């Protein structure tokens, strides 16, 4: 399976140096939403790496929806986003916020 990257020009460039061929450059959070949707439709994609800084400005519902996605697994890199939904799930399931 392949790995995909969605983010700003510099963000994707770095991962391209690591050999990734499946990428989309975006400049705004609206673009990002569209790009992520497109990427998720891509077949044979196992992990989708998204730029956390840009993702912060995306709609909350959409962000949470993709965070829950398992095919592909979406990971936000950089910034604080990416673990909110997971933290929330832990709080709901275990009863306390263990993520500290």
């Amino acid at each position, binding site marked *: *399976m*392949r*790995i995909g990257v969605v983010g700003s020009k*510099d*963000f994707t*460039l*770095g*991962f*391209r*140096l*690591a*050999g*990734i*061929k*499946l990428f989309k450059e975006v400049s705004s959070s609206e673009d990002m939403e569209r790009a992520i949707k497109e990427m998720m439709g891509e077949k044979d994609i*196992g*992990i989708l*790496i998204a730029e956390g800084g840009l993702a912060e400005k995306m709609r909350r519902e959409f962000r949470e929806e993709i965070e*829950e996605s*398992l095919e592909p*697994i979406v*990971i936000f*890199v*950089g910034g604080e986003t990416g*673990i909110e939904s*997971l933290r929330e*799930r*832990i709080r*709901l*399931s*275990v009863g306390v916020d*263990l*993520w*500290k």
Partner: protein
Amino acid sequence: MAIREVKATRSELMEVKKRIKLSESGYELLKKKRDGLILEFRGILERAIEIRERMGKESAEAEEKLRDALCYEGSLAIESSALAIEDEPEIVIRSKNIMGVVVPIIEATRVEKNAHERGYGLIGTSSRIDEVAKAYERLLETIILAAEIETTMRRLLEEIDKTKRRVNALEYKVIPELKEIARFIQFRLEEMERENIFMLKRIKAKE
């Protein structure tokens, strides 16, 4: 089972008592499973936090290196190096079983490479680009690890939720209801007994 539909017979009482016993042993088992899952989860959580931290550090480092390289080499040189890389990292997702929960194991190939394996020429590119590539390769490894472990956590959480719901349903719904039914039948049978005795006494008195 609603209490109205219950037939107040001795065999029914025995049946209900058997079901209570079964539910209680099931309840104990599920409680153990829940505790086991939470224990498992805690161990994984620790690793997940550690990996997230590492990922943050590595991504900051990689970005810094990339910025440096952009300043010194210009985006065109880096872009062309990126285009020259042929080997795309690949992942294989297999699955593993933790206490009945299917979790993924992600194996990556061709992530970290040597400078000469990357595909762009060594002459004409600077070591800075190598540094950036190396930093991003390392970051990619960590991201893949994070993907695996976070998915595992989500799966485990789902299972914990399910088990918890079952435990609660048994504790607060199924078992109390069954006990209620058993009590109802018991009372009913005792009542019938008393009626019987009373009837016998009346018959005797008439004689």
